[in-house]
């Protein structure tokens, strides 16, 4: 499938020239096209932030919801209609700050969704405050003495919470990012793709160059099914490992655990509830 099928006409893209977000969008469009998914079979969920504007710049069904809540929306959507491909997109502030609790528990719930996080280590849209992943010492107009909080470690937390697909990419490597996204979408269950993404406007520390110099790809020999090894990798900092850190297959998804799909795979909107069933039930009470 030509990935241009995912282009949206007449859009006024709001990202800054040079922003890593463009490359992530390219990787995502290509991944979807290569998986032969038609745009109307794809649902893009996002929150609020620069990253989260993505659904306004590419084709697909979309639900651009609140800051921090898109994985909950995505989980609900997937549960209502497991036939669609559901992707939740947002920034590091969105997913790990405001949305931290949903991140923690969505991992446990394991819906079959792909969670793409544009990790630029800063709040872009609100003009450059620290995000949960900002480095110690990072100075901003709010963090005037520099960040002192220990940076949030999304990959380690995801593994600790039992995620079955935990990966990291860098927007500068479009092909590799695309491949990772494809694997994430194909993975049955919750899949995290944390993507380093330079914010050219507000993060003058973690730049394109910095990410290139401070990352490396996991080698062929690396076994992503070894959780202890994955955890050690997850703790590595500068240089950060890129690729699939951890993955196991076979865990049941959220949707599969729901009573409504125990015997019937039909999406909910296509079902009819018989009032007679309710009547029977009430009469049985008497």
């Amino acid at each position: 499938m030509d990935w241009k099928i995912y282009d949206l006409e007449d859009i006024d893209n709001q990202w800054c020239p040079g922003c890593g977000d463009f490359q992530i969008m390219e990787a995502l469009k290509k991944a979807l096209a290569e998986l032969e998914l038609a745009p109307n079979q794809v649902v893009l969920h996002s929150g609020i932030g620069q990253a989260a504007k993505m659904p306004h710049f590419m084709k697909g069904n979309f639900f651009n919801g609140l800051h921090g809540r898109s994985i909950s929306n995505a989980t609900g959507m997937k549960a209502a209609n497991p036939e669609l491909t559901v992707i939740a997109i947002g920034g590091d502030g969105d997913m790990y700050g405001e949305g931290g609790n949903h991140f923690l528990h969505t991992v446990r719930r394991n819906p079959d969704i792909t969670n793409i996080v544009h990790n630029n280590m800063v709040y872009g849209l609100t003009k450059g405050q620290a995000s949960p992943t900002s480095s110690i010492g990072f100075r901003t107009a709010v963090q005037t003495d520099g960040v002192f909080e220990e940076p949030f470690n999304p990959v380690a937390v995801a593994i600790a919470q039992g995620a079955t697909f935990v990966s990291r990419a860098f927007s500068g490597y479009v092909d590799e990012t695309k491949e990772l996204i494809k694997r994430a979408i194909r993975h049955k269950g919750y899949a995290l793709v944390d993507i380093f993404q330079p914010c050219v406007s507000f993060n003058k520390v973690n730049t394109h160059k910095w990410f290139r110099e401070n990352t490396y790809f996991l080698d062929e020999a690396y076994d992503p099914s070894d959780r202890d090894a994955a955890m050690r990798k997850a703790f590595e900092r500068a240089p950060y490992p890129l690729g699939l850190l951890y993955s196991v297959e076979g865990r049941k998804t959220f949707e599969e655990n729901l009573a409504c799909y125990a015997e019937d795979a039909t999406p909910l909107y296509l079902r009819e509830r018989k009032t007679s069933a309710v009547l029977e039930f009430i009469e049985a009470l008497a």
Partner: protein
Amino acid sequence: MNVLPRGDFRDVSLVLCGAAGQGVQTVEELLVQSLHKAGFHVFASREYMSRIRGGNNSTEIRVSRDPVNAFVDRIDLLLPLNQGVRENIRERINEGTVILGDKEELGEELSDTSGRFIDVDLLQKGRDIGGKVYVGVVAAGIVAGLFGIDKSVLYGFFEERFADREEILRKNRRAVDVGYETGGRMKEESLLEVFLPGKGSAKGTVVLTGTDAISLGAVAGGCDFVTSYPMSPATGVLTFMAEHSHRFGIAVEQAEDEIAVINLALGASYGGARPLATTSGGGLALMSEGVSLSGATELPVVIHVGQRPGPATGMATRTEQADLDLVLHMGHGEFPRAIFAPGTLEEAFYLCHRAFNLAAKYQIPVFILTDQYFLDSYYDIHPFEIGHLSIEKHLVESTVDYQRYVITEDGISPRSVPGYGKGMVGTDSHEHDADGHVQEDFHLRKAMVEKRLRKMRGLRQEAVPPTLIGPEEYENLVVAWGSTRHIVEEALERVGRDDTAVLHFAQVYPLSEDTEGYLRKARTVVAVEGNATGQLAGVIRRETGFEITERILHYTGLQISVESVIDGLRQRLS
């Protein structure tokens, strides 16, 4: 000789009390089921502390040959199963109250009240049968005996539960027998007699709680997705839906918090489900931003709010009607909504059904306001008629050029869901264009605000009118909403004035257009509300300009009683 009912009352009000976790609930269920099976109309209402064990809780059971459905202060027969009877019960004991208690358990505890104490050696009897656990059953046996219920009905209760546990079954039967004998002796010894002759009319009725009625209404309304975070008193609806999730094909998920609850629900709604969220005050407050999201995205959702006293944690297992203002104004920005507040089990069922259709039609959040009293109380009613009910989906199949937010005359844009048709469905929390894409266009903004708010017209036209109970030509009007309906009705009946009617609101927003007319017709209007500031009166004044100065407000944490309403009305009606 103590004969019940007393005076001109037609029912017996029986109150059981005891510590949590001591089997009081079994006694309650045994009695209610047996009395109902025997043909009596029953009403039961619980008040309990926020703890798992100990303390002292109570259940009022009213028994009558006629339908009965409201909470009264009057206690005709008190059965204190444990010591530590609390002040709220003690205060309700008067000369007419017969107390059936065991001095061994209670000591001198209730001897300083004006009630008539009949000492029964319940503890000893229980021990004789096999332990303290049988005390309650003996007590229930006494009551059953006094009411002349066939023993087999009580036996049946235990047979169902302990079918394969012969020994326990035998002992429970024995406890029933002992209770019966004791009750019989009381009658013989002219100590106590219950006189409710003839058959009750309760045959063919079912006993349901408010929780049941709400839940069944949701099922009838096509609810297929339930999310919640446990919170008293709203957890029961979650439990009901979970219990029957396989039967009705419902997705049920307990979320990590209430923010997830509302966002899971809205995601599901976007996907085409008919979601229900159930919560109480604090959890509701946390959904405030999510409700605003429903407003902006025009995604239908039904939210059940079981009210309890606030602010903050307040009284977790108690009752109040103080979240109307919150529900009416929660969520930032301006968008339409509808709020129901059922006063009867039938209203709970039909309005909950209606809520799902209304939410789907107008693509808005719809609230059902109940409270702990309403959810935990139960009485018998005729099964709901449901042949005429339909589930309206209000969904369209999308074409390639489908647009989600087309501006229309009535404000309603045809709604599709992802996967349904060739098109795509865009949904957005920003101000957006017809495709759902974010736009900073100030004319569009204005048009979209107006489109959304235009739905209020239809919602107002469809608003459920308040129910007038009593004379069409009234001088005085008693305004009530939600759970106080039966209480106010009974109070007015007892006050016995043919110049006074009740106007009960089962929909509190938007108000039906005839509201003002009803109010202006009256010389005196009195509002009865379970809060301290008169919230419905506030809404009425804001919406109609009509000021209700006379108010009977109750905010102790307990439901207002028929007697309190009577007192309040006597003071306020000349």
